[in-house]
């Protein structure tokens, strides 16, 4: 008892000091912030409508991860592993938020170094104030842009969970996530969206994150499925989704939240936002419908897991295209997503035998790739003058640029994710031991049970 108390006291003290510590850097950048704030009152550029839209969009994108994605994934695993998935999503949210404030945002969007990475000048958000940063969004506070981007940095590693669910140890997962965010997400984000980023300069179109978020996470997912190996009993002795209503709820919240993701990427409440909102919705609906038709053809019955998977595939595919295509183009992209992701999940996975537990690769990787190409097909300057015309509008060149950007992403994500996984595996071991996997990660990794049996 006494020992505990001493430990508590010591620890409390230590962490309190730690808590106070941040004040020093705060003091450090006080001048910068003050200068920034001093500049705010006269700044006539903050538009309240645009700011309102970007803030609520940020909230929506957070809702995509918690509770959206976490429920979607949580419902699909077995009862004994649901908490582990929910915990991974929640931990990523906490962890990456802090990483982003400290160095992630700076690496991604900070002053460019040779087109490859942002500098650490914005470490701890130094100089990231409340006045707009015209390089990124001229009508909203810079911090609003920063937090909107943070939500993307959060959901991307969370998508990967779907591949290694039900068998990865928790502490190595935390370490891997931190490394991956720093060495894979942040550089890629800089390349595609950062001022000076080299893919951005190539003229590749990625409105809301097809490459950065979906291809990237999808490839990392495939790699982790391969590195970690199959779950015990896969594929024949697995039990089905333990709570499909959770997954459907999650899919609904993903859909709603995705409006923030795509239409929020217009960075203002304007015609482009409305257009992105509409095509996002249309492609999603079409993809859900298409998956149901595939279900009907191959299994005689439309299924609810099918329609929600289709909807998510549609959301993924429209993401890069959402600022560049018409509603009819969105129908095409959605239909393609439904067909292609269906085939990849139903046949390709079975064929090659990797255990992508919740189809993170099959939906996000494949769907993201299709979206990148499809942007090259259906993009039109009539929707967004700042974009480009695609193949169907007379410019076949765009498809090649899109393909190039996608392939660079694939290669980079594949190689670095693989190296990081192997390193963490060597140091800490990625996979739970057999006994713990059998008991379930909730109990073995977290000492908790999701549900009680008695009243």
């Amino acid at each position, binding site marked *: 008892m006494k020992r505990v108390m001493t430990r508590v006291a010591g620890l409390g003290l230590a962490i309190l000091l730690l808590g106070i510590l941040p004040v020093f850097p705060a003091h450090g950048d006080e001048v910068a912030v003050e200068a920034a704030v001093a500049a705010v009152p006269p700044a006539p550029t903050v538009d309240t409508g645009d700011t309102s839209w970007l803030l609520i969009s940020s909230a929506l994108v957070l809702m995509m991860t918690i509770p959206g994605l976490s429920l979607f994934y949580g419902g699909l695993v077995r009862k004994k592993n649901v908490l582990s998935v929910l915990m991974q999503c929640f931990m990523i949210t906490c962890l990456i938020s802090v990483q982003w404030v400290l160095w992630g945002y700076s690496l991604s969007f900070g002053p460019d170094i040779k087109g490859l990475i942002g500098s650490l000048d914005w470490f701890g958000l130094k100089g990231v104030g409340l006045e707009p940063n015209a390089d990124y969004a001229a009508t909203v506070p810079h911090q609003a842009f920063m937090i909107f981007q943070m939500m993307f940095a959060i959901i991307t590693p969370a998508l990967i969970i779907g591949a290694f669910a039900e068998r990865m140890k928790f502490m190595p997962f935390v370490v891997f996530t931190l490394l991956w965010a720093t060495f894979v997400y942040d550089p890629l984000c800089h390349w595609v969206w950062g001022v000076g980023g080299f893919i951005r300069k190539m003229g590749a179109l990625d409105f809301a994150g097809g490459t950065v978020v979906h291809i990237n996470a999808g490839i990392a997912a495939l790699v982790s499925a391969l590195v970690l190996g199959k779950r015990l009993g896969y*594929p*024949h*002795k697995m*039990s*089905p*989704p333990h709570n499909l209503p959770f997954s459907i709820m999650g899919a609904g919240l993903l859909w709603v939240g995705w409006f923030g993701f795509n239409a929020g990427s217009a960075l203002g409440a304007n015609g482009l936002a409305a257009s992105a909102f509409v095509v996002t919705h249309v492609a999603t609906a079409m993809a859900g419908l298409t998956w149901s038709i595939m*279900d009907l053809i*191959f*299994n005689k*019955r439309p*299924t609810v*897991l*099918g329609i929600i*998977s289709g909807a998510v595939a549609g959301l993924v595919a429209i993401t890069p295209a959402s600022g560049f295509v018409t509603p009819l183009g969105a129908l095409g992209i959605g239909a393609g997503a439904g067909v292609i992701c*269906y085939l990849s*999940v*139903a*046949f390709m996975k*079975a064929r090659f035998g990797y255990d992508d537990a919740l*189809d993170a690769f099959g939906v996000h990787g494949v769907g993201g790739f299709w979206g990148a190409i499809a942007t090259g097909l259906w993009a039109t300057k009539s929707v967004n003058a700042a974009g480009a015309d695609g193949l169907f509008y007379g410019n076949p060149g765009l498809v090649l640029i899109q393909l190039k950007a996608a392939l660079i992403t694939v290669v980079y994500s594949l190689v670095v994710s693989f190296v990081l996984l192997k390193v963490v595996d060597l140091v800490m071991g990625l996979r739970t031991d057999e006994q713990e996997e059998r008991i379930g990660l909730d109990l073995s990794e977290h000492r908790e049970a999701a549900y009680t049996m008695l009243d």
Partner: protein
Amino acid sequence: MKYIVAILQPDRLDEVLQRLTEKEIHLVTVTNVLGRGRQKGIAEVYRSHKEAGSLLKKVKIEIAVNEAFVKPTIEAITEGGRTGQIGDGKIFVLSLDECIRIRTGETGGVAIG
């Protein structure tokens, strides 16, 4: 006294309970169970992956009865539970040595009903 255990198709439970009532057998205990039998059942399909579906949802009922009620009980269950399809289930009859009503402490045949 006998302790009768029966495994049923879940959708036959209502019918069985009604037949039992008709034969004045009111007291029953019901449990959700999973069964592995000859029946392969309606295979569930998730993302085009067919579940082997070796364990199917069933319902177990338990009824303690005096000898005189054994035959009617079995009849009620058989009639109510039969669909003629594989998977209809089984009835098991065990000997019951003693029965006590918790509320009154009564024992034996009078406690059972």
